């Protein structure tokens, strides 16, 4: 039994139904494995007394769960309506140019993953970019090189 298994069970203990702990449990597993591998999903399922199919159904719904490997850093560029109006497409393009990859890809050195995201809830000052789950806003295309440089040094 791994530490993760016990950790998940402890979280599950806070809910009347162990299955209700599926989101925090998946989160713990992702932190442990880097992304939700089939083994990670099996482990979550067995700790919660459910099936890996159920866990994958939940995990695949949410963007913040990763079913495939991702880079050490995660850049999410909002491309939804409000940000699109203030140039999100150009911001995303700037990231693609700077990183040499397309949205949805990871740099060959495995350091950085770039994604386009749906509304991140910061519509007041777009474009919103989430970097490792911390918001930068507003981001203009000309801010991008410095941000990438910071992450590469990081």
């Amino acid at each position, binding site marked *: 039994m791994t530490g993760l298994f016990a950790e998940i069970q402890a979280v599950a203990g806070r809910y009347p139904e162990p299955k209700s702990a599926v989101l925090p449990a998946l989160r713990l597993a992702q932190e442990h494995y880097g992304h939700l591998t089939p083994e990670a999903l099996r482990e979550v399922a067995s700790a919660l007394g459910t099936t890996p*199919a159920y866990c994958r*159904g939940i995990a695949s719904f949410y963007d913040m769960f990763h079913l495939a490997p991702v880079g050490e850093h995660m850049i999410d560029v909002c491309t939804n309506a409000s940000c699109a109006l203030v140039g999100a497409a150009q911001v995303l393009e700037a990231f693609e140019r700077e990183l040499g990859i397309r949205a949805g890809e990871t740099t060959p050195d495995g350091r950085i993953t770039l994604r386009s995201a749906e509304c991140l809830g910061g519509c007041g000052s777009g474009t919103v970019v989430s970097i490792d789950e911390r918001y930068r806003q507003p981001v203009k295309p000309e801010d991008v090189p410095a941000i990438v440089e910071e992450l590469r040094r990081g």
Partner: protein
Amino acid sequence: MSAPELVGGSAADRERIAHELVTVTIDGRQVQVPKGTGLVEAAAAAGVEIPVFCYEPRVGAGIGACRMCLVEIEGMPKLQTGCTTPVTDGMVVHTAGTSEQAAAGQSATMEFLLLNHPLDCPVCDKGGECALQDLSFRYGSGKTRMTFRKRSLEKPIPISPTIALDRERCIMCFRCTRFSQEVAQDEELSAVNRGALSMIATFEDEPYRGPFSGNVTELCPVGALTSTQYRFKARPWEYEQAASVCGLCPVGCNVAVQSREGRVQRVLSRNHPEVDRGWLCDKGRFSYSHLYSEERILTPRRRGVRELEELGWEQALDELEGMIERAQGEVVLALSGSETLELAYALAKIVRQGAGSDRVVLPEQAADALDPFRVPISALAEAEEIVVFEECPVLDRAPLIELWLKQARRNGAHVTRIGPSGDIQRGRGEAALACQELAEKESALGKRLRAAERAILLWSGGGGAGGCHLAALAHALGLHEKEGSGALLLPASPNARGVAEAWAAAGDENRQPRQIGLLVVSGDEAASEPQVRQLAEHARATVALTLFAGDSGEWADLVLPATGYLERSGTMRNLEGRLQRLRGATGSPARRELSWLAELAGRLGVDLPGSEAALFTELSAKVLDGISLASLGDRAPLPPRVEAQTFEAARAESPPTLLGGPLELIRYRALFSGPEVEHVPELSFQRPAAEVEISPEDADRRGISGGNEVVVRSNGTRVTLRARINAALLPGMVRVAAEHCAELARGVEVSRP
């Protein structure tokens, strides 16, 4: 029309609400329905159809996924989904039939549903019985505005050897995933991704293993989930359909057997709401292809010099007649319990009246002691307290009962299982003792059972006396005085009680031959019984009536081809005591038993009619109180309870001492086993693994971990199996599926090789 079904809430809530009526107006028609009724049902009661795809009350309350049921409700600004809206008093509803707004909404929904749906109806198995096809014909525009390419995906994907998934056709109604999560509760089928990318999937490449998986092929309103066995075999309008009953377990699910050109093409549910609620297990649904196995014997065979040789029917009957003569009254009949009453009666008559013998080997008996506590199976869903004496898993014996237990738990019932791996752990042979304890005044569970308005006891395995123990307990708890309370026994064979009745009807003498001149073995199940095999060794001659020559071929002198349960007409008595009609599918490659039995009876001077109906009339006059075949109808009624007698507290016998080793071997017949399943290649992935289940304590003590290869031995028999740790299993016991037990005795030792 029957009362609309209310979904959710406790039984008591539903009862209270059902008495209050509300008035609603739908398309100008006023109707009164019980408060809480769904709009779809209320409309149906008013004679108005609200079309649906995703809504299926049997998988739970409506979820409004497909939007096909959009209606206009006065006072609400936007269209509402009928399937998620309970009616309220004074509600005025306009469906697409009378409201332009609703019609426009519905037509837009239809357009969206067809956006990516391929136009492959001519090659789709669902064609002709497809909800999408029917409703687009009625509500669709007939023209498409979509000029771009439709989505194309890999297809068909085998989500199990029995089910194919075509994701292009899927309209994401979630019926299948809800069945998997809510009804079967296997959670093996789920929806992955989100929005337009959503799709149905199992985990990785793992097959959908749940024992009820096949129901999703019937639930799917389009051709997305189809049966691989049935793929491209036939069209729904080409069938001849027989309204029959499944003969594989004592539940007796009502089935529609559909055949084309004399061959069974598929088995569907025929929904008896008190028995199966429209569900089937995969054994019942997919086993039919055993009838066309190459290993099935279709002509009589006689033991030759080296092996079995074929012979004609005339010769075979000469042979059998000679065997009966030479046995000089020392004939023993071994019945499987899978025979219809009529077939068992015909065999019994020949043995008792033609061969002059009265000895029979009956399957594990189901006594009539529980008749005062009779309840329909469906009463489980409404029960508050259910206690299962579960020496053999309910799922293996009577799979549908397991689904009813899940439904009961979903409705708020307490389900307590008592057995080797139950909530209350009890060893084998201790169920009777547990019964006595519950009957005592101070038992906590017993008190709950007494207090409950609806309490049901179930007995699964543990010997033929189970009925008496259970009856004594049920009587002590006063269950005969409460409607919706009762007790049911799950026998090991489909028609155990029926064949015992049939045997009794054919004679009343009791002449026990001291030797066995001739052993008559009916059915593959009996032929595979170790006890019957032993008798065969002592018999001077043996005749077997079987579908396959696998077991009987090794020792029988004469093997006569049997017909399968899907080919037989007649009656069977299920575990509730319900007498149900089987109607044989058209055509059988083997000769009907009753035809040659009548011929044989003629030679022996026994008066035996050759038709099932005439046999039933005879039987009915003798043991069934003269009821008529017609009174059983298509969905047979449950006979009324009989008057309760006083019960002697049954004596619980102590379990026999173990010989051969310290661990008690539980040899069980797994659900996916038996002569039919063994001849269906698509079900081979469900067959029980060659493993031994062992408790963590016993495993630790022997240095065994899960997945290890271990040797199970007793009295010189050694079997190599894989160990599986079962944390729920009582220490001191191990479980092995019967087909992997070989000749192991009851006491065994397990060790690393």
